[in-house]
Every structure is written in C-alpha cells, then in structure tokens.
C-alpha cells in the first residue's frame, strides 16, 4: 500500500500539490484522473522518486520512501514522455531492464514483443509513437514490479492494441497481485480497467472512491407516474439530479438500489426503467453535488 500524507510540491513558487492525501491499496488498479496540469504526473514522479517532495510523506508498505533502491525495485514507471537510449533496439533495451530489475521476466517480454509484432532488432528511435509506447509498457510489465505507474499511457495506441494492453495489465495484476496506477485526463480510458479512482484537482485529491461502489450506489431511472409529479415526490430518495421532460423524468439517485426499486414500485409508475450510468456521468453528478462544474475539473 502506498500512503501519501500532506504531500506538497511547488515549482518556482507555484504550488502544484498542496498537502495531498491519498491511499493506493495493494492489488488494485488505481485511476488518477485530472485535467491537464492538475499534478498527476508530478504525483507519480514524487511517488517513484524522480522528483523530491517539498514536504509530507510517501509511505510504501508502511515505510517512508527516501530514494532507497530496495523500494525503487518495487516500482515501474511508464512516463508520458518516453525515452530510450540512442541506437538501442528492443533487444538491447530488454537486456538493460533485465540487468537493472531483479525480477525482470525477459521471456515474458519477448513473448509480448512477438505478440505485438514488434521487431526486436530494430532501433527503437525508428518506431512510431505507438510502438515506442508498447515497448515501454512491455518493459514495465516484465519488471514484475509491485507497483506499476502508467502516465497517460494509452495515448497514441490504436484501439485493438489498447485493449490488448489493458488486458495484459489486468492479467499481470491478477497473476502477481501487483498494484497499478494509471493516470489520464480521459475518464473513458479508465472506466473499463480501474477499480479505484482519485480525482486530482487544485493540488489535492478532490474525490476518491471504488468504481464498483460508485456504480452500485448511483443509478439513473426514467420514470413516469399516472398523475403529474415533481422532484418533491422523491423526498424519500437521495436525488442527485432531476430532469423532467413532458411526463417522463430522468432521475439520478444515490443509495441502495434494491430498496429504492421497492419504494419506486410502490409509487405505481407508468414507466420505470433503470438505465446504466457511465463513469463520466457518475463523475458529473458527483461534482455537481460537491459544487464543481465537471468541465472545470476534468
């Protein structure tokens, strides 16, 4: 588990992370969402030891992280801006990682390279952006690190490969029990892979929750009653949003779904449909509750 407490970092007097608190549980895929410049990359760089914090603490498995190699062995980081040694091929790069990381699985890496049709002997600098990213992801996954960080990782990768990689990440997590942290400014990217989400805004985690819990507790209904009705008729429910168009209202509710379904049926609705909520919709309504405009935050 990574526990971040009161983490502060500023660049040239501008505070980027302001007493940030966050907990990344072991064995989860943690999605870090936030607008560009929110501090996602900075947070990842501080956790992995690239940047030094101004104040606060980063605890890894209960131990304060202070640039120790033993702890760094637990990390693998795929940055947004990739770097490979000049003139290095995939083969050279895999050999490099194999020497540096104690648990590097070179066979796994080679298998992935073959599966993704990458040429092991080609110089990486001649690769497309997407191929370079695939190479970096393969290297990171093959480290078998306990904590893997992917910063805007799915940018520039075509949908087929993206799905393959998401699957590979999930498999790796399942197989090794590792923890994955993925950052993105696009909620849709994280929706189908993450099981925890943290929303970074103005240097702090504005909102943090398990996705399953969010999806289970929040739902959308379309309802029509025999008589005319208004929001006041739903006083017994936790209504996050109420929009009526004609005789049909679209309502977002938060609470125990089974209990709510029972209560709603008692109202003898003409129409009652439970509709799935996208993660984006969940966030929009959550933000509204917190008093933020979704577009401001992401």
């Amino acid at each position, binding site marked *: 588990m990574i526990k971040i407490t009161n983490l502060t970092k500023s660049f040239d007097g501008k505070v980027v992370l302001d007493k940030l608190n966050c907990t990344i549980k072991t064995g989860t895929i943690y999605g870090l969402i936030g607008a560009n410049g929110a501090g996602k990359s900075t947070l990842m760089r501080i956790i992995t*030891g*690239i940047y030094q914090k101004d104040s606060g603490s980063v605890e890894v498995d209960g131990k304060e992280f202070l640039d120790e*190699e033993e702890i*760094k062995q637990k990390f693998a980081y795929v940055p947004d801006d990739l*770097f490979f040694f000049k003139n290095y091929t995939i083969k050279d790069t895999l050999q490099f990682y194999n*020497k540096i990381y104690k648990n590097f699985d070179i066979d796994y890496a080679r298998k992935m390279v073959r599966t993704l049709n990458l040429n092991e002997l080609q110089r990486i600098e001649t690769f497309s952006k997407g191929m370079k990213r695939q190479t970096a992801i393969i290297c990171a996954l093959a480290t078998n690190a306990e904590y893997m960080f992917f910063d805007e990782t799915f940018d520039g990768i075509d949908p087929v490969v993206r799905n393959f990689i998401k699957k590979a990440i999930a498999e790796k997590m399942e197989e090794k029990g590792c923890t994955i942290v993925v950052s993105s400014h696009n909620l849709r990217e994280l929706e189908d892979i993450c099981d925890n989400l943290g929303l970074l805004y103005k240097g702090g985690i504005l909102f943090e929750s398990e996705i399953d819990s969010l999806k289970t507790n929040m739902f959308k209904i379309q309802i029509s009653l025999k008589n005319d009705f208004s929001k006041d008729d739903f006083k017994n429910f936790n209504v996050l949003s109420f929009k009526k168009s004609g005789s049909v209202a679209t309502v977002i509710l938060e609470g125990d779904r089974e209990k709510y379904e029972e209560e709603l049926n008692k109202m003898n609705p003409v129409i009652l449909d439970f509709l799935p909520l996208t993660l984006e919709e969940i966030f929009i309504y959550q933000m509204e509750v917190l008093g933020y405009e979704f577009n401001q935050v992401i």
Partner: protein
Amino acid sequence: MSLTKLFNFDYMFENIKKSKMQILICMLVVPLFTTIMLLTAESETYNFTSLGIFNILFMYVIPFILSVNLFGYIYKKRSVDFIGSMPLSRKTIFFTNTLAGILIILGIQALTLLCTLIVSTFSSSIIFAELAWDVFVYQTFAYIFLFTIANLAMSVSGNMMTQIVGILLITLLVPALYTFTYFATEDNAYTTIYENTTISPISHFDSFTAPTLILSAIDGHGYGFNVVSMTKMILLSVIYIALGYLLFKRRKMEKAGESFVKKSSHYLIKALTLIPFVMMIKAMFMVEEFEALPFVLGITLVYWFVYDLITSKKMKFLQNSLALVVSIVVIYGVLSALIGIHTSIWNGKIKTENIAKLELYPEYYSSRSNDFNEKCVIKDAELIRSIVENNKAYEGVENSKYLPTYMNGTVFMKNGRKYHIAVMVDAEDREKVLEYAEKQIELPLNKNVKVHLSSQIASIADRKELNEIIKNLKPYQVRENGGFDSYFITYDSPSSFEMYRNGFYQEVYAYEYVNHKLYMYIYSELDNPEIGEFLTNLYNKVALEQVRNAKTNEIYYTVRDAKKSYGTYSSLDVKSVLRDFILDNKDEKVDLNQDFIRLKLTFRKPGTTALTCTYTTNKVQEVIEKFTVSQNEVGRSEFEEYNEYFDDYDYYFEDGEMIYEVPNPNIKVLNDEEINSGLEENLDKIYTEQ
C-alpha cells in the same frame, strides 16, 4: 556502507554501452596519437610534453566528453523520468558514473603506457619505461581531476554550455588571480640592498594543477612529474567528488535542461566570468595606458548582455548596466586589495647577513667548455657577501670595463622567505661561482643511458652497442631536462656536427632518467676516441649505402675547415666526383689517429626526411685536390659569414638592442659600425687574436 550499494556494475556496463562509440574514441585517441607521434616524430624523447598542444586539448576535452556521456542524459528533460524511475538511488548513479569515468581514464592511460612501451622496443625514440610510468601516473590523476571538475560543473549547471563555463572557471580562475596578483606585485615589490637587482616574490606556479601547469609551460615554466601538483589534484578531486555528489543528490530534477537551479547562481557565475575583463582594466590603470580602455569596456558590456541573452533570453538594460558597474567596482576593489596584501608581504629590506643561501644558474653565461646546467647553491657567507657587494657596485653597465654577467637565481632568507633575483657579477666573481659550483656538482650518472640516434642512421643493434660504449665514458656536458621547459624538447636534433680539424667533430647525445628527471649528456669524440671510431664507422657505412641508392642530384654536402665553410654544393659534376670517390673507397679502414678529412653529407629524397651524416677518410690530399676547384668556384656568401659569426657568439637583447656576450675579456666587442665595415676583415681579426 557496502560497495554494492555505492556502485552498480550492471548499470555501469549499460551506461558505457549506450555511448560506446564516443567512449571508444576517447579510449583510443590518446594512445593512437601518442603511438603515431612516436613513430613519425622519430628520435624524439617521450615525456610529459610529447603530445604538444594536444596534451592540454585532450586533457580538457576527453574528461568533458566522458562526463557528458556518462552523466549528461540524467540532466535532460526527456530522460529524467527514465533514469529517475530506475531502481537506482542517486548515490548509486553518481558514484557508479564517477567510477566508470575513472576506470575509462585509467584504461586510456594504461593503453597509452602500453603502446609507448611497445613502441620503445623498436623505435629510435628515447623512451624510458620509468618516465612513461611517471606520465601514466600524473596524466591519470590530471584527467581524473578534470573529470571530477566536469561532473561538478554539470551538477551545478545541468547544461552543456554553462558546464563549459564552469569547468574553465574552476580550473583557471584561482591560478589566473594568483598569476595576475603575482605579476602585479612583482612590479611593486622592492628591496634596498640590491640596487640594481630585479627582485620578485617567489612564485608557486610549480604547484599548480595540471591544466594550469601545461598552459604556463607555453610561457616557459616547467611541466613534469610534480608531486605537489599531483597531491593537490588528488585532494581537490576528492573534494569535487563529494561536492558534486551533494549537489547531485539535492538537485531538483524538474529543472532538468535548465542552466543552474537557482537564479542567484547566474549572478555569481556572471560576476566570476567578469574577473578577466576587470583584470585587463586594472592592468591598464597600473601601467597608465588607457588607449584600449574604451574597447575593453565595450567588450565587457557586450559580454555582459550576451550572457543574459544566452542564459535567460531576457535583457533588462538599466538593471543590468547598474549590476555591471557595481560588479566591476567590487572586483576592481578585490583585485587591488589582493595586490596590496601581496605587495606588503613581499616588500622589504634584504640584509646580507640574513641571507641563508643563494641559488644561482650560471650556465647560460659560462664560457667553459665543461658547461653544466645545474643550479649552484652557495652557502659560503664570504662568497655571498662578495656577490652582493659587487652587485651593488655595478650601478650602470656603461661604466664597467667589461660587461658584467647577470645570473638568475633565488635568495633564501634565514626567516624562510624566498625571492627571485637576478644579480650582476663581474668576471672574477663568476669564476668563483663556477669553481664553487663545480665542486658541488654531482652528476646524476647511473649509466642507464639511451643514445639519441635516428633509425635512419642506426639500427637497434647499433644503438645497443653505442649504449654499452657510453656506459664507460664521461660526458663533457650534462643538461637537466627534467622540467620539460618547452612543449617540444629542445635537444632533439640528431647528433650535431661542430667544426673540428679538417671537418667536423662528432658528438652524440644520450639521455638518462634519474628520479623523475631526464638528463641529457653530450659525448664528444674529442674526449672519447671510442665515440669517434664508432660514429665514423657507422656514418661511413650509412654514407656508402646512401650514395649507392641516391640519385646524384639528391646528394648535398658541406666541406668545412676550422675557419671557413665552403657551403653546400649544387654542381652535379662535383656530386658525381663525390659519389665516385666514396664508392671507390668503400673498403677503406679509417684511422682517426692519422690525418683525416670529414665531409657533411645530406641526402634529400623527394617525399622523405633528409638524412644527414658525415663521411670520413684518411685520403686528405686526394679530397682537397678533388674539391679545390669547385670550392674556389663557389666561394662563400656574405650570408654564410654573417651566420657563422653569430653562431659562434652568444648575444641577447636589452631594451631592443642586441648585446654581444663575449665571454673572453680579450675579445673585443664589435659595434654595428665595425660589423658593417667588413665582416671578413673582422672575423679574421678575431681568429687571429684567438
């Protein structure tokens, strides 16, 4: 702390591998260059200055390239995420890269040493394994020193341009300040006892680190195996490594690619780089020459603003101008204070009774054939008093009967202070000094000598044989060459030929390594007939071989007797006569106890180095008869006479005027009028008087 935590050899290997081409070039350039130099510049002595100007170039450039390749990518914006996220602590990264650089430097120097030793097995160059080892040790520390400076500069600046500025500042600023203060103080220092003596504070130039030592070697200061300099470099390297690590550990990686993390560093660096400009301004005020002042101020102003444009891409005119004025005033004040402090230390009154000893260097002015180049240490109080009092008496050279002689040296006071001096001594005192010195001199001969003969002349076996002969002989001249005073060894010509009886006398140079110094001995056939016999046979063999293979027009020769040089002949007829004569007499056994005549031959084939040797024969009359006609035809040119005149007498310049140093008081000094009135007549007169 375990070494495994400090160094990661897998990372080291990969870090070197990623820049293998650049590092390979660095590894090979010095050994290759040295090897080529030793193979092509035949008959050179291998020493600290063998690489000439490339020595200082490589010393700066190679550690810099190593630093950029091993450390540089860590400071780049694009790669900082990559290296920062690797399971390597900053400590491991820094010390592993530092060790890698040191190992590469060791490799470079070891390879150079190996190549040198291999070349020494077959080359005619004078290569002492001990001296090659000295070079290896000193150069290794020098390169490591520069490498640690480059890393420190990188840790501070984080970008290549400012790294270069940093390296130059760290290596040269303190020596430059010292040198400036020294020379400024030299003008201000005075003494009352030596009215006509130049005196200056003793310099510590010899204890500078390698870069400054090499640079000052251009100006004639020594550069060789220097324990003080080496110790200083080792200590400073350790300090720079520690400092570099601390800065690297604390460095904010988000500032990757930016020069200097703190803006205040820029002000400091900019002010430090201003010091040379202010030195020029200060020097102008000291000598009261202000003609170039506007130019220097203009250059300073331009530099000041260009620095800002390059580093911050901004230009605040008023603010910067004010900062410039303040900086100049502050630096000017500091320089003045330094000179003041230095002057107050060195100014003083020297009393004869407080002199502990004198060290004088009489060699340049000695008329003795048994010349030497050793310093003469005088502890004899009576002799010291005599020199001091006589020196005081010579208030003007124009009043003296004979020109007094200057002797450079050092005066050691009883309180431990030392001064450089130049005293004037008369002929009597000079004789006393020389006699005194001769008693003291212990020639550092241990007979491990190597003769200096071109491979065009002598084979390895010939040189070995001559080495064996020389071991039992006494040289007539010894010169200490340990300081390696110039970039290129002065005494590198092949065996020289001087006038001797009917021709030239032959001598051979040999070198010996003693206690980190190289001594050069000159063995002459005048003192050692064995040398004459060996060289005569060797040169005659070479002459015969060359005559057989050379075309007639490729042969040049000189016939010279005790008074006259008959010049170099160009007539093909005469050359044919010479060729035939040598071929006809190929079986002659020359007996040097009998009359002989010697010719100096030069064979100059197109595209090859000219080969010079002598040809000796006992058939004196035959040679004279064969060549008399041609000699009369060609005669001597005035130019040759003029050159010959100056060849035989020392001269020096004073206030732009040439002064002839005539060691023998019986020889009259010629003035310009006398010289111009008829060279031939005057020369004959001189010879007659002799």
